[in-house]
């Protein structure tokens, strides 16, 4: 008897849920007559609504991608109820405003919302979560055609949200691909954020988040993680972020975080760190970057271990003599030492900061003399008698063979 009541309740629930069908006219009216837990099937047709506000826990299912048009004036879907699912819509031309954050789909103070398999095209903000909790944003294709930072919004924007799951979205042409501000306990997984005007992914004041297996490619300034702690960054790809202020990964005022198994390829700077502390950088591959890592002197307790540095112009750059970081057991393709006892660890330390990277840091036009005889001469002398490069910045146990990562 104790178990019977819950089981009965379970069987009873579907009886109350109904399925509604919308084929043109006002979608809002259909939503208004639906009850909590109902399903609404929406077929391609022309819908007259300006802004659709969902105030009930409904499952809104688009069949064959019905188009909802914001006519460049309105927010398209506003979700103001818990347990709402929006699935399979094509949302185009949301309004554009410099005062309000108008979005294609916006979550207002709701829990357990699922936004899945939608196509968003030419929206100001794509998907916006404001005080959302435990929401899933999955499999959406979000594109915009922004030209300047100020005139475009972010692809997926989360503000003061918690426990968000952002999975397998494809975002392009926005200001920031994914933007987090005051978001906690979120996971960003398998997204592809490319060709955005500013950052592919932008963290501000967001703690205890992870992002795993994402691709960030060819964004205006790469990826920025700022003023946050406990961020885990695993197996992401940071590629082709080119420019003076473009970084594969920019870390500013970050602490207690993990950067593991990522690939940094063909960026001007792979990782740029400023004011970062207690960060583990391990098992990453830095390949063909201008600078593999730039660690400013304001960083402390950065552990760089077991990474591959391959074919970078400069492996590590810094701007001062103070070194409070540790390099251990990395593979550096520029290492010229030997290994007498055959333990696969080089017997003399490697200094990843070259003289010439210090010179270029102080005097950028000197880059024009790079790889000249005089530059090679300076580098060689510096290796024997370090004067300009920081004495303590060295890897005492460099590996002889690259790690298989």
């Amino acid at each position, binding site marked *: 008897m104790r178990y019977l009541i819950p089981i009965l309740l379970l069987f009873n629930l579907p009886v109350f849920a109904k399925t509604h069908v919308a084929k043109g006219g006002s979608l809002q009216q259909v939503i208004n007559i639906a009850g909590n837990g109902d399903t609404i099937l929406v077929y391609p047709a022309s819908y007259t609504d300006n802004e659709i506000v969902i105030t009930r826990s409904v499952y809104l299912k688009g069949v064959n991608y019905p188009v909802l048009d914001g006519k460049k004036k309105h927010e398209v879907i506003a979700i103001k109820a818990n347990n709402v699912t929006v699935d399979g819509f094509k949302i185009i031309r949301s309004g554009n405003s410099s005062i309000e954050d108008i979005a294609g789909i916006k979550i207002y103070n709701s829990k357990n919302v699922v936004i899945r398999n939608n196509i968003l095209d030419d929206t100001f903000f794509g998907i916006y979560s404001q005080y959302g909790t435990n929401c899933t944003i999955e499999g959406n294709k979000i594109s915009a055609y922004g030209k300047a930072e100020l005139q475009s919004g972010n692809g997926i924007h989360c503000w003061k949200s918690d426990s968000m799951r952002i999975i397998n979205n494809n975002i392009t042409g926005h200001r920031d691909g994914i933007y987090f501000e005051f978001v906690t306990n979120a996971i960003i997984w398998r997204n592809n954020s490319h060709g955005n005007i500013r950052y592919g992914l932008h963290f501000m004041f967001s703690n205890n988040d992870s992002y795993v297996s994402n691709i960030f490619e060819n964004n205006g300034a790469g990826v920025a993680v700022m003023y946050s702690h406990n961020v885990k960054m695993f197996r992401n790809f940071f590629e082709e972020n*080119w*420019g*003076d202020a*473009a970084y594969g990964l920019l870390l500013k005022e970050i602490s207690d975080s993990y950067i593991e198994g990522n690939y940094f390829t*063909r*960026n*001007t700077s792979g990782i740029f760190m400023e004011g970062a502390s207690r960060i583990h950088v391990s098992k990453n591959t830095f390949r*063909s*970057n*201008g*600078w593999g890592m730039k660690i400013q002197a304001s960083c402390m307790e950065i552990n760089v271990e077991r990474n591959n540095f391959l*074919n*970078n*112009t*400069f492996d590590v750059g810094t701007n001062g003599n103070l070194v409070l970081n540790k390099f251990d057991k990395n593979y550096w*393709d520029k290492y010229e030492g030997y290994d007498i006892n055959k333990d696969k660890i080089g017997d003399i330390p490697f200094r990843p900061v070259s003289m010439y990277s210090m010179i270029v840091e*102080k*005097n*950028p*036009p*000197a*880059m*024009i*003399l*790079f*790889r*000249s*005889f*005089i*530059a*090679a001469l300076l580098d060689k002398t510096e290796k024997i008698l370090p004067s300009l490069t920081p004495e303590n910045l060295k890897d005492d146990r460099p590996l002889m063979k690259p790690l298989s990562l």
Partner: protein
Amino acid sequence: MRKIIKYVIADILRNKIVIAYTIVLLALSLSVFNLEDNANKGLLSLLNIVLIIVPLISIVFSTIYVYNSSEFIELLVSQPLKRKTIWLSLFLGLAVSLAIAFFIGAGLPIILYASSTTGITMLVIGLMLTIIFVSIAVLASVTTRDKAKGIGKSILLWLYFSILFDGLVLFFLFQFADYPLEKPMVAVSALNPIDLGRILILLQLDVSALMGYTGAIFKDFFGSSLGITIASTVLILWAVLPLLWSLKRFNAKDL
């Protein structure tokens, strides 16, 4: 003219030093490509050879050759031949044979192991540098009668172009660090053919690092078709102008 060129080329290609130069270049390039695990690193090592050894051999060998064939030149002058023809044939003979030596020694390995844009750029730059330094060598030798002095002069010129010039540029960069020097640096690089060649190769090899602010200026200039045209023109001028000057001197020279 063709006969003289043929004779000069045949004479130089039979020369032991040129054969040794070819073999050493070949051995170096092959070992460089076989030792390094990727072709790009091989190119990087080859860069130093192209920028330092090739100009050195070209300039020193050509100077000595011109001095050694002074009797041959006198003989030719006594024949009904124009001085211009004699001098240009001599230059062409030198340039073509050294270019062949470079092509066999370094060019073939580059084509075999690294026929990327970077490799081809390096090959072209190497050939250009060979011709330019032959041209500088004939100028150095025609302006000095004494052999030892002439060879000294060409070695000094090589030293200037490959080391001193860069040192001076670095010195000025630091002295005038407070001024925006990016654009003047582009112009300054035209004053040294080795630097110009190096920058053109750098744009292929270190393109990521060059995408920084300063690099972007270089990239914008040298990466555009206009910039490449200008750079090639400047390189050709570096070959043509010393040659014309030396021709003028040779025409007026009392042998």
